[in-house]
C-alpha cells in the first residue's frame, strides 16, 4: 500500500536533483501559478509576470 506522503517525497527528490538556478525557477513559477489559479482568464498577464520574475532571478 502506497504511503500518503510518497508522491510528496518523489516530487521533492526530482526538485532536489536540479541545479540551484533551475530550483529557483521551479519554486518561483509554481508559487506564481498557485497564487493565480483563480485568474485563469488572465493568461497574458501571468506570462508577463513569470517572465519578469525569471529575469529577476538571472539579473
Amino acid at each position, binding site marked *: 500500500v502506497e504511503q*500518503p506522503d510518497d508522491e510528496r517525497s*518523489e516530487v521533492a527528490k526530482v526538485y532536489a536533483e536540479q541545479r540551484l538556478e533551475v530550483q529557483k525557477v*521551479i519554486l518561483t513559477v509554481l508559487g506564481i501559478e498557485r497564487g493565480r489559479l483563480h485568474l485563469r482568464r488572465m493568461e497574458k498577464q501571468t506570462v508577463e509576470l513569470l*517572465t519578469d520574475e525569471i529575469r529577476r532571478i538571472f539579473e
Partner: protein
Amino acid sequence: MKLTSLALDNFRQFVGPQRIEFAQADGSSGNVTLVHAANGAGKTTILNAFTWVLYGTTSLDFEQSERLITDSVWDALPIGQEASCHVELHFEHDGTKFVLRREVLARKDSHEQSRLPTKVTLSYSVDGAWKTQDAHDDAIEQIIPSRLAPFFFFNGERIERIVHREAYEQIQDAIKTLLGLEQYEQALRHLPEVRKTFGGEIRKRGNNKASALEARRERLDGQIAKERKEITRLEQEQAAHQDEREALSGLLRESAGAAQLQKRRDEQQLALERADAARKEARAKRAEMLVLKSHTIWLARLWPLAAKVSEGLHERGELPAKLKGQFVEELLQRGSCICGTPLLKDEEAYQHVAAWRQKAGLAEVESAWQYMIGRAAGIERVAEEIGQSLREYTKQIAEASDAYNQAEAQLNQIRKELEEIGDVDVQVLERRLGDVNRRLEQLPVDLHQANERIKTWSIELTDVRKDLQKAKGDDARLEVLVRAADAIDDAQRAIREMLELAKQRVRRRLDSKLRLVHSTISFKPFIPELDDRFELNLWDGEGSQRRPAPKSTGENQVLSLSFIGALVELCKEQAERAGDASLLGRMGGMYPIIMDAAFGNLDDTYRRAIALALPSMASQVVVLTTKAQVSGVVEASLRPRLGAEYVIALRTSKDDAEAESVTSRGKSWEYVVPGADSDSATLQRVG
C-alpha cells in the same frame, strides 16, 4: 463540505418554495437522505439543481435546460411581466456557514423561455454576521472543484461510463485537482511562452551562430510539442476503438444470427491471448537462461580440450612448477641469490634468476587450474540440464505458436463466416469490427514511431543547447539570456517529470483503495484495477493467468461506485495531510454523494450490495430513487442509516395516470396525483 439544505423556488417542476433538509453526518442519526419520486417527478431536477447552483451547468439528460422557470408560472405570466426562479444551497465548509444562491429574473417577451442570464450570490457567516464573497466561482472551486463534481453528483444508471476508456482523462483531471497539481499544468502551459520571449531576445542579441542555433532549438521544441499532442490524440483514438470493439462484440453476441459464431470467437480470442501469453513467458525464460547460463554449454565443450592440454604439460614436466613467483620476486628485491651470488641488474646472475619468473608463474596457473578442475567437475551434466531446459522452452514456444496460429486461423474463418452471413446488420457490424481491429493493430506502431521521433529530436535538442552555451562567446548580456533560457528548459522538463510522478503515485494509492472498497461491495471474486493509463479494469484471477472479467451492468456499476468510494476516501485523506505545500498543493475534503436513479434495473443481489455500501462511502449521501427501485432489499438495507426521508408528490395533468402513494413509517403519502390543471411537483418530508 457539509450540506445543510437545498431550497428551490419555481425551479422547473417545483412550483413555489420547496426545501430539503439533509441528514447530517454528526452521528446522532443516519447520514442518508432518501428522496422517493416517480419517473419524471423531479429526481434529475434535484440532481441538476446542485450542479446548476454550484457551477451553472446541467447534465445532458436535463432536457430543454433553458426552461428553468416552472412552466405553469411562465405560461400564466402576461407578456411584458417579470418572473424569477432560484436555487439556494446552504452548506458548511471548514466551520464556516455558506449560502449559495443562483437565480434567474426574466421578462416575458414570448411564450418560449430563452437562455437567460443568472445572478449568483455567495454569502458566508463570520461571527454571526453575513458577508458576500466577491469571487464566488473561485471560492466554489476551492470548496468543491468542478473537475471532481461528476464523481459526486451522478446518475446511477449512467455511472458505468466511468468504466469506459474515454473517461480516463476525466479521472486523470480529478486526480490532478485532488493533488493540487493544476499549478503544474498551468506552468507547463505558460513556460513555453516565457521561453519564446527569452529566445527572441537571444536571436536579436546573439551573433549569427547563436541566432541560428536558437532558431533551430525553437523548431525542435515546436516539433516535440506537436508530437506530444499527436500521442495524446492517438491514445484517445486507441481508447475509443477499444471501447467500440467491446461494444461491437457485445452486439454480435446479442444478435440471433451471430451469437453462436461470436461465442466461438470469444473462445478462440481467449485461446489466442493465452497462447500469446504462454509464448511470451517461455521466450522470456529462454532469453534469461541464454544470457545467464549459456556460457556453461560452451565451457563444457571446451573442457576436454583444456584437460588434454593440461595433461600434456604434466607429461612434459612443465607442470607443476617447483618455484613460487613471490619467492623469485623477493630474491630479486633482496639483491642476492640463496647461493649468496649478488643479483645486480644488467648482470647475468640477475637475468638468470629473473628468467624463473615466468616458470614460477606457472605454479599459480596450476593452482588455479586445480581449483577449476574441482569446480568444473560435473560441468557436462549441468550443461546437459541447461540444454534440456532450453529445448523444453523452445518446445513450449513452438506449441504456443501452434496454438496461436490455430486460434488465429479459426478467428479468420469465423470472421469470414460472419462477413458472409445472411443478416445484413451482422455483416455491417462485422465489417466495422474488422476496420476497428485493423486500426487497433496499426495504432501501437504509430505510437511507437511518434515516441521514437521525440527521442531523436530530444537528443538533437540537447546538442543544440550545448552548442548554444558555447556560441554565447564573451557577451555578458547574452550569457544571462542563455542561462535563463537553459534553466527554463530544465524547469519545464523537471515540472513535467514531477507531475507525472505525482500522478502515478496517487493513482497507485487510489488503486489500493479501489480494491478495498470493491471487496466490501462485490460478492464476486473479481479484482479491480486502475491501470497506469487511468483506465478502470476488472480482472478474473491474478498474475499472468488473469483475464478480463465479464462486465455485466451490475458489475460495471459496482466497479464505478467502488471507484467513487475510493475517490471520496482519498479526498478525505488529502484534506487531512499536512506538509510543505510549496511543491505540491493541498486540496481535498469531505464531500457528499448525490445519486440519481441509484439502483437502476439491477437485480436484488446488486441492489442490496450497493445499498449496504453507500452510507459508509461518504459523510453524507443523498439517494434519489423511485419507489420500485427502493422497495424490498434496498429499503431494508438503507433504513437503519436514514436521517431524512422525502417524497416528491407529482401532480400531473394526465387524466389517465393512475394515482399512487408511498407508505413510510406506517403513513401513506401522495406520490402521483392525476387530474391536476398543470404538471408540478412538491416536496414532502416524511421522516
